[in-house]
């Protein structure tokens, strides 16, 4: 069974540019989560999808971040325009509906904004 995959693994962009991160959850997992780890800090929750609906987006930093999950399968996280403080590792995780506590994480996308 394939795990959670994320693309790209690394992205280096300039301040003001746009970047789109993609996450493919484990097949059949209705719950999809985005987290972010800024260097030296803790991993912080961004948002949670149940199928295609946003269940909780309380962790989204500001309106430069837009997450979508069309069709309830893969998800994208767009940052537009990127700022220096957006640099970090963005993790995606997924879980089954009944076992929310077993969140399976992807390897992360390392985003560097210069």
């Amino acid at each position, binding site marked *: 069974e394939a*795990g*959670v995959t994320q693309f790209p693994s690394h992205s280096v962009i300039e301040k003001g540019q746009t970047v789109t991160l993609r996450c493919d959850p484990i097949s059949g997992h209705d*719950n999809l*989560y985005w*987290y972010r780890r800024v260097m*030296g*800090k*803790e*991993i*912080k*929750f961004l948002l*949670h999808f149940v199928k295609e609906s946003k*269940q*909780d987006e*309380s*962790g989204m930093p500001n309106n430069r971040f837009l997450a979508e999950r069309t069709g309830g399968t893969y998800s994208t996280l767009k940052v537009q325009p990127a700022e220096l403080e957006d640099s970090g590792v963005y*993790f995606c*995780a997924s*879980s089954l509906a009944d076992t*929310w*506590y*077993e*969140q*399976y*994480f*992807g*390897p*992360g996308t390392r985003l560097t904004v210069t």
Partner: protein
Amino acid sequence: AQSVTQLDSQVPVFEEAPVELRCNYSSSVSVYLFWYVQYPNQGLQLLLKYLSGSTLVESINGFEAEFNKSQTSFHLRKPSVHISDTAEYFCAVRGLGGSNYKLTFGKGTLLTVNP
């Protein structure tokens, strides 16, 4: 709201030595507790969890953690570590109730096992 404090950012130990990685949490409600591990160039993996029942929980690779409600702690221990245990370990918490499934993490502890 919850918060998690991992008291040690780095823990170096020698192979076959015992290790304890400390985790304390703060919450106004009862909690579920987790330890995740991240090996180099990989995603986080769930190591063990406390949801209810016995306060001592174990993983398949010899780690254990004990939920101590009075101390608000969930320290991770292993009696004898291996080189392959070198990784970053994250403690996480989620408050009981509701449909909010978000995890609150600590800053992580880098465990380095030396030969």
